[in-house]
């Protein structure tokens, strides 16, 4: 009986520790980033849309449908109150860790999300054209803070 209690206590402590949301740092962050780079497929697919001002504007519009809730209007989390509190934290889309993905990988991430982060898949929710235009927008993000914050956080 005493042994069972000890096991239950240890298990509870383990679960409580494991469930605590903390920012991945140092080695953990590097391992995760390397894993993402290698595991996320579709590396070779090219963006079929030309990177014209029109495409980028379309991407900005499509991005505003719901991506802004976590990534902000500028893709750099401006005004998103919980961006740092997620585990892992919501990355700035202008950061090297995001920009080093190929266009095909970014499309893959938008299509299917990244498990177990909070990034959901948008395939079917957005059209192929909208998703590719978002990839173009991500390659031409405006300066951080230049678009203000999402209306949902400021009304």
């Amino acid at each position, binding site marked *: 009986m005493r042994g069972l209690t000890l096991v239950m206590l240890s298990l509870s402590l383990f679960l409580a520790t494991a469930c605590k949301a903390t920012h991945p740092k140092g080695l953990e962050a590097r391992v995760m980033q390397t894993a993402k780079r290698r595991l996320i497929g579709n590396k070779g697919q090219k963006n079929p849309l030309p990177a014209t001002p029109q495409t980028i504007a379309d991407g900005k519009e499509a991005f505003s449908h719901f991506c802004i809730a976590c990534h902000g209007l500028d893709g750099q989390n401006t005004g998103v109150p919980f961006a740092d509190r997620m585990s892992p934290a919501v990355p700035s889309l202008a950061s090297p860790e995001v920009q080093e993905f190929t266009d095909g990988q970014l499309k893959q991430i938008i299509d299917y999300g990244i498990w177990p982060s909070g990034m959901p898949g948008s395939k079917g929710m957005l*059209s192929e054209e909208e998703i590719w235009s978002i990839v173009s927008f991500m390659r031409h993000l405006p300066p951080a803070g230049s678009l203000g914050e999402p209306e949902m956080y400021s009304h």
Partner: protein
Amino acid sequence: MMLKSFSTVALIFAALAPSVLLRLSAAANPAPRRVEVVAKRYCFNPSTVNLKKGEPVILVLKSTDVSHGVRIRELNVDVKAPKGGQAEVEFTPQVSGDFVGHCSVFCGAGHGSMTLTFHVSG
């Protein structure tokens, strides 16, 4: 006498010419065909519309729920119907082929699969 009858004929011709020209012009430029498409989450009805190259069309987009839209750049079509309302756009297809437009106003989880196809023949 000869001059007088010539003047009368010229006068009649001048009076009739505008209406004759108008009729000829109308025959050359027929009234645009109205095509009604109903949009609702997450489909267009009909989902395929047959058009003829060079034939002017008025696309009437009616929404029965939230806002929806259609944009097909190749055909110069860009129209947005407000929630429960309608909007129209006039265009003349100049190229033949199949053109697929997507809903241009985000309308929910199935927005990405909401398509309207224009089949332009000729």
